[in-house]
């Protein structure tokens, strides 16, 4: 969006009157970008599945039946687990918890990241030093061990999982957003807003924030990916909320029931593929945002590149 423009000094004057224009071209860029369209299509399918799960597979998917470890068949498209649960039903129902936790963690971590990043960039000095220190410490502490130790001490439950993932996930977004906010903070229009006596909150959220929308979006997508993956990892270690059906828990049970050693590949493949598809779809959208906003990464060949490939 505007970020690429804003990086060049001297073009800031264009900001106020033409503020909406690059926005429209951003939407246009995203909607004509193949990566973005693929990613959004995949995401829509999964969101639809998650919403329709109770209609598609009514009843409790984790109910134990006598039809244990059956291969995929017409009746059970993806076979059954060692406890006789239908794998397809488990997978479809699992998308609810996984997407919910992923989105919640994504939005919460991005929100904290925005607050910390903007406060750092706007106030500067001591506040920036302090917030940056905390951010960097959290970035450096190894994430998964920290997750494990937090989850082990907190009472088990979905709330704990979300809380723990936000605690370990916000720092990355805070750092990215801070550096972007810093470069916008030094622009003339922000200085003008300060001089004209606008309140701090208004400058941060009305002047600075709208100009970093694409970075915020990229951060949000990355945080959702992190949330989904980390939730699965946590649950795979048996530290999640064992009572819910989610992709991570499905994999935990697959491992626990020895699906690998007995050759029941259909038990562990679907949930993993779903996590990967969602993460990949989000990553595609993320790259598309990057491509649309960063002209250097666009596919158009610059004359320089053509020259070089011609010289070889």
């Amino acid at each position, binding site marked *: 969006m505007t970020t690429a423009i804003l990086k060049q000094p001297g073009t800031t004057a264009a900001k106020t009157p033409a503020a909406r224009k690059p926005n429209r071209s951003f939407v246009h860029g995203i909607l004509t970008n193949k990566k973005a369209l693929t990613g959004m299509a995949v995401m829509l399918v999964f969101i639809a599945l998650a919403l329709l799960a109770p209609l598609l597979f009514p009843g409790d998917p984790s109910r134990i039946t006598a039809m244990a470890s059956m291969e995929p068949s017409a009746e059970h498209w993806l076979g059954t687990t060692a406890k006789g649960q239908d794998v397809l039903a488990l997978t479809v129902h699992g998308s609810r918890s996984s997407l919910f936790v992923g989105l919640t963690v994504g939005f919460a971590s991005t929100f904290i990241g925005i607050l910390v990043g903007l406060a750092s960039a706007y106030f500067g000095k001591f506040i920036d030093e302090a917030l940056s220190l905390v951010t960097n410490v959290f970035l450096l502490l*190894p994430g998964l061990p920290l997750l494990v130790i937090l989850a082990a001490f907190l009472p088990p439950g979905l709330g704990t999982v979300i809380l723990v993932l936000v605690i370990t996930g916000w720092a990355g977004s805070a750092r990215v957003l801070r550096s972007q906010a810093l470069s916008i903070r030094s622009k003339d229009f922000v200085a003008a807003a300060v001089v004209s006596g606008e309140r701090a909150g208004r400058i941060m959220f009305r002047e600075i924030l709208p100009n970093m929308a694409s970075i915020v979006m990229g951060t949000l997508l990355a945080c959702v990916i992190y949330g989904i993956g980390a939730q699965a990892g946590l649950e795979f270690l048996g530290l999640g909320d064992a009572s819910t059906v989610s992709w991570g828990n499905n994999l935990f049970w697959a*491992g626990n029931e020895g699906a690998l050693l007995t050759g029941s590949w259909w038990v562990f493949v679907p949930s993993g593929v779903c996590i990967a598809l969602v993460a990949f779809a989000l990553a595609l959208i993320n790259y598309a945002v990057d491509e649309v906003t960063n002209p250097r990464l666009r596919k158009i060949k610059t004359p320089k590149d053509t020259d070089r490939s011609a010289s070889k």
Partner: protein
Amino acid sequence: MRFILRRLGFYLIAFWASITLNFLLPRFMPGDPVSRMFARTQDRMQPEQIEALRKLLGVDDRPLWEQYIGYMTNIFTGQMGVSISRFPTPVTEVIASQIGWTLLLGGTALVIAAVVGNLLGVLAAWRRGGAIDSALPPLLVFIGSFPYFWLAMGALYLFGVVLNWFPIRHAFTAGLEPGFTWEYIGDVGAHLVLPALTIVLVSIGGWMLGMRNTMIATNSEDYITMAEAKGLRPGRIMLRYAARNAMLPSVTSFGMGLGFVVGGALLTEVVFAYPGVGYQLLNAVQGLDYPLMQGLFLTITAAVLLANFLVDILYVRLDPRVRSN
């Protein structure tokens, strides 16, 4: 030098933060995991060991600051209590016996992934739109989207169970005498293939894309045009001029990547029952072994911080701009 001291101070603060977190967690958590643990193990423990554990985990009547000082002293003198699940081995001994395996696994995977990934990134950026540039990034991003442990499960199933090419559990065959014999080293190597492969597969994409994007920026620098104008061989320009200058962000991510690999290795170790600190951490969690959990967390953190510090020192060597101020 000032840069190094600043970084050292920062790492000390980070380490202090993780110790304090370790100290506060059992003391301020709702619910009482500690008494749950005691209920399970009391019959096997001596009274003085229970007393020591109570102090370690904060079931203690002393004022908080006194506990805190005591806790710090214990950590820095290496007293992390005794392990519950492998009672009565001290925590430090349990960790010492297993950290080597994690270093072997994580180190091998990190080095392979970083070297191969960066080389691929250099090639992709050099021939933009070429075969490597158009085919590999999407593929590697897709592979990287899979959870670590799921790829590990897949590799275990495919190469271990179905094809039976590689051993699927532990770090060496049970009953084999550890030592510097070819048989033993080969056996360890064979056990390393699958866990290392999964970590490499997942992390290589990040290296490649990072390097590619920096290289694209470097390629448009004037000194590259200058080098071309001088008529230098393309291979020389690519490696000595472009890649060399694009390396710096990769060096920084190497330190960061280490934390990531430790986490990834943790899950991979669990899948392959590889006897490193990650596998032990899971055992500790399942056995409600809080002292061991805390000890492992501190050890892993210390290792990551130390590695980052070493990377910083290397960075000063590589980037003269840091040295000048």
